[in-house]
């Protein structure tokens, strides 16, 4: 494996020897230490592990928000770490959706405008935007909240707006960093079910979480420790390290 397009079974994501090093004063922290990972389209993965184990860094690298110091990252057979920042932006726009713990909604924009933002940035015509936003509001049960600003929405509604925004460009994968971290149990469950529905629709779902109950719902669990993947277990099966 390794050469782009050579692998017969097309992996959506392929990481080889990914390293990410942070320099904090004199000490060197290996946030990611030689990660090898293969993710197929449509998978549902929970990334778990203690604080500082490198979960979020992995997510950021996967989402092209952060660049690795070493290693190869093939996204749909394409080496993306060497792309220019603008090409990476296009990949993020077309293929990747983010859901953040603290929602990251733009406070001055209404729910509908927040959902439309990725399409505005991508330069889609407004008629198409309006139609898609209407469908998304409908699908996420937010129609009567369309003109509300984030501070007029509950936590669950905010996260639903954020998920609607993350999926509005119909990405191939959804990266969620502690999506239920700021929500109570009931709302959190609701949000998780929403994400799982999207996954059932074919979107690859990768969730970073502390929550064991949430992790247990995923079909595949990655347990991280000190920047490395300690366990990679499929549903039901006992854990065995990948690679």
């Amino acid at each position, binding site marked *: 494996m390794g050469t782009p397009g050579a692998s017969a079974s097309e992996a959506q994501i392929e990481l080889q020897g990914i390293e990410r090093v942070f320099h904090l004063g004199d000490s060197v922290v290996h946030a990611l230490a030689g990660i090898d990972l293969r993710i197929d389209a449509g998978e549902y993965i929970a990334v778990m592990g203690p604080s500082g184990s490198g979960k979020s860094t992995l997510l*950021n690298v996967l*989402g*092209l*928000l*952060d*660049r690795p110091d070493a290693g190869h990252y093939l996204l749909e057979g394409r080496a993306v770490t060497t792309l220019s*920042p*603008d090409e990476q*932006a*296009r990949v*993020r*726009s*077309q293929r*990747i959706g*983010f859901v953040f713990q603290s929602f*990251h909604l*733009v*406070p*001055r*924009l209404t729910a509908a*405008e927040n959902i439309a*933002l*990725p399409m*505005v*940035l*991508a*330069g889609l*015509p*407004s008629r198409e935007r309006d139609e898609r936003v209407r469908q998304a509001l409908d699908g996420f049960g937010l129609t009567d909240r369309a003109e509300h600003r984030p501070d007029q929405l509950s936590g669950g509604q905010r996260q639903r707006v954020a998920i609607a*925004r993350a999926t509005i*460009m119909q990405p191939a994968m959804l990266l969620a960093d502690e999506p239920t971290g700021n929500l109570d149990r009931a709302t959190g469950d609701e949000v998780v079910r929403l994400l799982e529905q999207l996954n059932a629709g074919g979107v690859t779902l990768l969730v970073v979480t502390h929550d064991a109950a949430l992790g247990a719902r995923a079909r595949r669990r990655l347990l991280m420790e000190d920047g490395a993947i300690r366990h990679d277990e499929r549903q039901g099966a006992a854990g065995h390290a990948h690679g």
Partner: protein
Amino acid sequence: MRTADLLGFAVGAARGNRVRTALLMLAMAIGVAAVVTLTALGDGARRYVVREFSAIGSNLVIVLPGRTETGGINPGSFVSSTPRDLTVDDALALLRAPAVQRVAPLAVGTSELSVGGRLREGMVVGSTAEFIEVRQFKMAQGQFLPREDWNRGSQVMVIGAKLRAELFPNEPALGQFVRVGDRRFRVIGVLASTGSGLGMNTDELAIVPVSLAQAMFNTNTLFRILVEARNREAIEPAKQQVTQIIQQRHDGEQDVTVITQDAMLATFDKLLGTLTLGVAGIAAVSLAVAGILVMNVMLVSVAQRRSEIGLLKALGASGSTIRAAFLVEAALLSAAGALFGYALGLAGAAVIRALYPTFPAYPPDWAVLAGLGTALCTGVLFGVLPARNAARLDPVTALARR
């Protein structure tokens, strides 16, 4: 990102943080308004003085007795120390000069004017019929001194508007007699009110034929000779010819001073131009201060919005989209602030004009352009530069900063 969306996004961002927007526009407006008002003040002062000097009369060359500047040593310097008198015959001789259009001799003294029981100290000016044309006065009533032999005047008088009001408060002045010393003059004209010029308040003058004035004040000397050159280009030749003629008549000695209004005007214009520049300097400093203010507000606001920039990048915005969004926002804010400041500055100048109606406080175009230009440039520059830097960061770095 589409243009309409860019504009909408920028307006939304500006309205989203009203305090920041207000601060920015205020900083911008104060800078521009200071420049506009201050330069209006400086340039107004310059125009005011230039206008006052223009009121003296056009193409004027003035001959004064005595030298006010040394022209080197000549034999005359040792022979006599007192300058010769400037006489009516000198003035008549000046008419020979080809560049000279008109000549008006001027003898001045103060005397008591009385009408009936009313007594007033007044400035009596002896001159000729040409005086009104050289000085470009207008008559309110009657006529000016008649054309006649300069050495033999009739007993007539033309008075200024204020003098008329004081000497003849309730009756027509024309045809009345005014006593000056032991002579009686018939009032044949009243000057229209003009204000001051050449250090004399025209409204308080009593003008009589020059020969009578000299006789009254018992002197042959003229106070000034006013010479009008044929046109603007003839001013310099007229000055030289006048100097030459007087020198010939005064035994080769240069004992008069000839000044031109142009020279005075030029001097004052230069002086006041410098003043305007000084004022512009003050304005530039205030503009610089405003620019730094704008810069700081912009820097802080972009720093505050780093996480927003990170979010936009995460949502797939390219660096150029982010730069464009911030450029449009900065340009809109700067333009609005600068225009607001311009209006404020014009209002300030209008207030000055309302308080001092004679003072033409209009901002010069160059100052307006410089003010607006600097404000716009600083605003846009410091709105875009930090945004550029933020756009260059990895999204995760930008996102992490709140």
